[in-house]
Structure formats: C-alpha cells, structure tokens
C-alpha cells in the first residue's frame, strides 16, 4: 500500500503518525488525557484566581478589566483552532488519516464555543466600556464572520451522512473558507476603522498592559490552550468511538444482509 512506503521513509516521524491510527490514538490519548486535565486545571485555577482576585482594579476600567482573563484567551484560541482545523483537513486530504479528519470535526465544536465565549465576554465588557453591547468594529466584526464560518463548517458536517464524504467536503470547505475568511478580515478593516483595543501582548509596544495584568494573563493563555487540548482529545475520542460503532454496525449488516 502506498502509505506504508511513505511511513518507512519518514521513520523518524513514526511516533507522530502512529497517532493517526485510531486504535493507537485511543490508547495514547487515553494515557495522555489525565495529564492534560491536570495541567489545565492547575494553570486555569492559578491564572484565573490570580487574575480575578489578586490584581488591582484599573483606574479607568474598574473591576470589569478582569474579564480580560477570559476574553483574550478565548479570542486567541478561537483563531488558533481554525488554523488547527485547516491543518488537520489538509492532513486528511493528503494522507487520509481518519483521526485527523475527526479531530478537525471535534475542534470545530470547541472552536465555535470559544468564539461564542469571546463574543459574549466582549459584549459584556463593551457595555460598561463603550456603552453598547455591540459595535461594528473591525475586530468584532471579523470575529462574527469567523463565527459564521464555524457554523457553516459544522452544518456541512451535520448534513452529510457518509463519514468519508463529509470529511472530504468539509476539508475542501475549510481550505476555501480560510482564504475567504482572510479576505474578509482585510475587507472588514478596509470598511471600518474601529474602537477595539490594539494587540496588547506585542512585546515591543510601550502601550503594553502593565506587568501586574500581564503575568496572570499568560498563565491563563496556557490554561486555555490546555483546556482546548483536553476538550479536543475528549471530543475526538467520542468521534472515534462513534465511528467505531458505525463500523461495527456495517460489519453486522454485511454478516446478515
């Protein structure tokens, strides 16, 4: 078979591609999961508690500033997850590793939740800050667009019955969609210059938020990343099990048809 040869060529990467075998994946992820859960719980607890209770209230922002510890990490994760889905889709299209397609499907669910969380925390924050729940600021708008892309991607997964067909088509959509999502981002920036904060984590800018806020924020970022990994593993494992059930049903049908 074709991919056997490829595997031999890349001996050094075998440990990675081994994950692409569903059975192997279940085994490895089963062992990794508790560790990930541990890391996520600890970092999140430290980051959020530090952020919420042990940082001073900002002069201008009041205590509402503390929402930043949820808002920023979820917002960043929302973008990163889309990128991860794109990569997973490409892997599926090129090497046809089932776990990769299922991971993309699983990630979409987490991604849409993160996007929604960023939107909602943003809206909750916007109310005291800008006096409005929503403004058509480019950053906010492009987030809404990202949300739409997530919705479309998930709806396509849901609408197609055959799992491989669904994986193929959603991968094509993820690729085309990424191009258009990027385009929309530029379009939105062109269309309206807005109210939203610039990037405040860039290291060279002097307008950086002061260290007191910065340190717990970094920990929260790590925590949310770990949380994503946990959720991704759990969801992917569910998808693998569902697929396994499907395969068993099919086999049974072949036996008695």
């Amino acid at each position, binding site marked *: 078979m074709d991919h056997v040869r490829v595997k031999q060529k890349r001996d050094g990467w075998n440990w990675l591609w081994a994950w692409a075998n569903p059975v192997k994946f279940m085994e490895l992820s089963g062992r990794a999961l508790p560790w990930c859960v541990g890391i996520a719980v600890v970092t999140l607890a430290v980051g959020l508690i530090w952020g919420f209770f042990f940082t001073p209230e900002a002069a201008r922002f009041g205590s509402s500033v503390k929402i930043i510890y949820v808002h920023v990490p979820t917002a960043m994760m929302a973008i990163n997850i889309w990128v991860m889905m794109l990569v997973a889709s490409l892997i599926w299209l090129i090497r046809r590793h089932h776990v990769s397609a299922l991971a993309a499907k699983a990630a979409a669910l987490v991604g849409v939740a993160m996007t929604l969380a960023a939107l909602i925390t943003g*809206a909750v924050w916007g109310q005291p800050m800008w006096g*409005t*729940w*929503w*403004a*058509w*600021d480019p950053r906010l*708008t492009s987030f*809404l*667009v990202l949300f*739409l892309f997530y*919705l*479309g991607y998930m*709806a396509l997964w*849901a*609408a*197609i019955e055959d799992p491989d067909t669904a994986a193929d088509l959603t991968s094509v959509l993820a690729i085309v969609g990424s191009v258009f999502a990027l385009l929309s981002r530029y379009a939105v920036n062109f*269309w*309206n210059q807005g109210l939203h904060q610039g990037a405040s984590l860039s290291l060279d800018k002097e307008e950086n938020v002061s260290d007191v806020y910065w340190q717990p924020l970094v920990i929260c970022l790590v925590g949310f990343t770990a949380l994503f990994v946990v959720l991704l593993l759990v969801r992917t494992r569910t998808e693998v099990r569902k697929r396994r059930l499907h395969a068993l049903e099919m086999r049974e049908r072949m036996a008695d048809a």
Partner: protein
Amino acid sequence: MIALLIRDLRLSVRAGGGFGLGLAFFLIVTVLVPFGVGPEEAILAPIAPGILWVGALLACLLSLDRIFQLDYEDGSLDLLATAPLPMEGAVVMKAVAHWLTTGLPLVLAAPVFGALLNMPPEGFLWIMGSLALGTPALSMIGAFGAALTVGLKRGGLLLSLLVLPLYIPTLIFGAEAASRGMAGFEAGTPMLMVAGITLGSLALLPFAAAAALRINLR
C-alpha cells in the same frame, strides 16, 4: 394528521439542521446589511426593525419550496392525496411544521439580532411580539405559494415572485408595529392588523392551497 406533522419535523431535523438553519440564515442577513450600508449606529438603529422583518421574511422564503416540492418529487404527494386525510389538513400541518422550524426560532432569537443592529433594548419586546404574531401568516401564505408552484421546475424564484407581493401587507404592518413600539409611539393598530392578517390567512388559505395542490397533481 399529527403523524404528518411529526414526520415533517423529523425529516427537517434528520435532513440536517432543522431548527438551526433558519436561524443561521437570519443571522447572516443581519450581518450582511451593515456590510452593505455601513456600520454607523445612527443609520442602523432606525432601520433595524425593518431589516429584521425583511430578514425573517427571506429566511421563510428560502425554506418554502421544501414544503411540498420534495413530497411531489418522490411521489408522496400523490399518495397523500389519495390517503384518507383532508388535503386542507395536510396543508395546515405542513405550514405548522414550517413555522415551528423557521418562524418560531426567529421570534425567540430576534432580540440578539436586534442588538447586533444596535437596536435599543426597548424595542426587543415589540419586535418579538410583532414577529410572533406575523410569522404564522408568512408560513401559511408561503404554503399557499408553494402549493401553486409545486411541480414547476423553476420553483425557487417563481415562488418568491408570487409570494413576496403577498407578504407585503404583513411586512408593512409588522415592521411598522415594531418600529413604532421601539420609538415609544402607539403601536396597537398595526399589531392588530398583523394579528388580523394571520387569523385571516389561517382561516382561508388552507382551502385555496388545497385546491391549488389538487389542480397541480391532475
């Protein structure tokens, strides 16, 4: 007849989406409009109720051809017509199923979309109320239009063309009620008109739609 309702709901859930799709479409329309007309709150807020009503109307419209077309194509409509089920009842059930999957979610989600269009919160109840009263009429009128065009290959656009003019009174009164209510004016009259249109449609259109179906099957 309940069996038909259950079947239709099940079909729309199975065939992907069900309740969510209409909502998602509604969301997209409300997002598109600011892209077209610009982001200024001063422009958006006053037109918000109108946009929401137009969006609801389009979301209904896009799902209309599914009311009878699929049943026609796979032959179920012939079989339903020969079944011991008054055609009028079948029409009503199909309109109800359509409303449950499209109209109702829109009513519930309207405030969120209103907020997106910078609508002041005072308007939320009004938009929900006017949509709740008006969307059943949209589904029923739509079912009538779908019955008229079932079996025509170019269904989609023709259907819209037939149905949109019929939607105009509902739209005018509905949007008027919502925007008057939002602005704090008296909105009872347009609300009553919307309710009247809905009641009238529900009382009369099933017969017209059933007649149209029978003619189309001939």
